[in-house]
């Protein structure tokens, strides 16, 4: 504490408590987020198998990755799942929110019903829908018992459409949240806007499309980011509902990474695959962050 005598406290010790309180954050940010990411990217250029080894093989792991059918299926599935989730949850979420915003009765009841799946884990969601979509007992069998003998609805056992079976469950779990976010956005719009539009004789749907939705831009952007960051993570749902099957038809990148890192003892492949996941997030997040924060700073 000698610097104290000099009149001014030593800079590092100024505001010391706040710095101590921030140590966990600084460690997490630097060691786990920055350090861990750099470590994984670094070792994705090695041929690590059971243990990480620093013997470099250049882009070999990536070449092998993009030549593996399992990975290609996983990427394709993620693309289909991602686009469908984005479109459907935005559209359904907005339509539900618009309906809920009509000063209806029992609003709380409806919202409770729409949102409760969001409280459930993906494992529970996946297992519930696995049972409902079970061809021997579920919807298919019920419809057949009604007399329509040739009715077929077995998405989880059909390699061509299995990802849509997962999509049904995913939408069931997540649209309630989107509806709530949209509703908060709709409620945030000044009621005078609606009155003005009505005075001008603009039809309701036009008011929504040309006035309200553009005004909801901040909420829409947030929603978009939430949906997008959820899509890349999709893992538990697939594990619970299909375990990646039939065959490898419902593999997703997150599952590929887990399998190669912890089951197949092929760390290098796992690192390369996870680096590709990171890359896809960067491609989505960087333009958004630039638009959102870069733009704001310029406007002051």
């Amino acid at each position, binding site marked *: 504490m000698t610097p104290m005598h000099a009149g001014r406290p030593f800079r590092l010790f100024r505001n010391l408590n706040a710095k101590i309180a*921030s140590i966990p954050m600084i460690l997490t940010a630097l060691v786990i987020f920055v350090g861990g990411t750099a470590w994984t990217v670094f070792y994705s250029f090695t041929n690590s198998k059971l243990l990480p080894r620093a013997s470099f093989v250049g882009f070999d792991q990536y070449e092998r990755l993009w030549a593996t059918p399992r990975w290609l299926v996983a990427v394709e599935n993620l693309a289909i799942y991602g686009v469908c989730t984005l479109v459907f949850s935005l559209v359904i979420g907005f339509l539900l929110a618009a309906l809920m915003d009509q000063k209806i009765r029992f609003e709380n009841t409806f919202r409770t019903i729409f949102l409760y799946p969001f409280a459930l884990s993906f494992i529970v969601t996946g297992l519930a829908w696995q049972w409902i979509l079970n061809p021997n*007992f579920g919807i298919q069998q019920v419809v057949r018992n009604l007399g329509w003998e040739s009715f077929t609805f077995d998405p989880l056992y059909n390699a061509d459409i299995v990802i849509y079976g997962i999509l049904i469950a995913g939408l069931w779990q997540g649209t309630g949240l989107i509806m709530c976010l949209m509703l908060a956005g709709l409620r945030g719009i000044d*009621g005078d806007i609606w009155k003005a539009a009505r005075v001008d004789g603009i039809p309701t749907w036009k008011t929504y499309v040309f006035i309200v939705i553009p005004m909801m831009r901040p909420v829409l952007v947030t929603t978009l980011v939430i949906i997008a960051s959820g899509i890349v993570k999709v893992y538990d749902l697939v594990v619970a509902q299909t375990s990646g099957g039939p065959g490898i038809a419902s593999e997703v990148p997150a599952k590929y990474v*887990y399998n190669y890192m912890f089951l197949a003892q092929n760390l290098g492949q796992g690192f390369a695959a996870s680096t590709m996941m990171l890359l896809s997030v960067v491609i989505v997040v960087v333009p958004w962050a630039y638009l959102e924060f870069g733009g704001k700073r310029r406007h002051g």
Partner: protein
Amino acid sequence: MVEQVFRAVPDMAAVAPATSRASGLVGPSGPRPRRTFSRRNIFIYGTLFVVAIYYLLPLYVMVVTSLKGMPEIRLGNIFSPPVEITFEPWVKAWSTACTGLNCDGLSRGFWNSVRITVPSVFLSIAIASVNGYALANWRFKGAEIFFTVLVVGAFIPYQVMLYPVVIVLREIGLYGSLWGLVLVHTIFGMPILTLLFRNYFASLPEELFKAARVDGAGFWTIYLRIMLPMSLPIFVVAVILQVTGIWNDFLFGVVYTKPDTYPMTVQLNNIVNAVQGVKEYNVNMAATLLTGLVPLVIYFVSGKLFVRGIAAGAVKG
């Protein structure tokens, strides 16, 4: 000063249910002539009703399936209510269902999850709230940089950091233990929680903080005596967020624990998706419901607070 405090706190009420909007409407007073069965109303309520059925269906199917015996399941259809109600599947799921060689049911996973969730929630909120407070009121050079890194880091897929965290845990001797998983949940809960607390503390009037400083209160005194008592709502929101999030976690549980310490979600998945043995759908559904029960109860009890929490966290973040 008190008024200022109160003005700042109900900030979140903006996203609360809109009964206020209907009642606070300015304009012609008195009951509005309204036809109950207009075409518009039939459309609105009809659509909402059909959608509500779609959302309720899985829960209903799970409940009725878990109350049936296996012969009834094989014969009947999944939507029909049980002819003979039996609670045997629930008992079996809780105490004797098998995962591999262990046949002590979901109860082990349940208690593991409790032992993981309670310390994780406590630790992560304690650390993040102090941290958010430091960021909001005691800014120091460089703090914002680390905070930005932290928030941006929240977008990195967990898969990228899975293995480095394994190494860190192995180095400090916590790999495979419950406390290792607690640490992982604390780390990965930090971005959203710190953001939540920082924004909340920053919305409190600064005069309050300044007055306390003039009176000679330091970092911890202000936190414990002023910030903490004023921030009960945000703490409740954080607890709800963390309990449901940690209870529902699967990825971290399966990566960082061993079969003895598997949380409930992992054990549930192992029971239901077991390859060997005859499938007992009623036991599976009972087990699934048991696992979903904790977050469901929290959801139904906390009600509006849950909605406010996720809406406030999401819209502001």
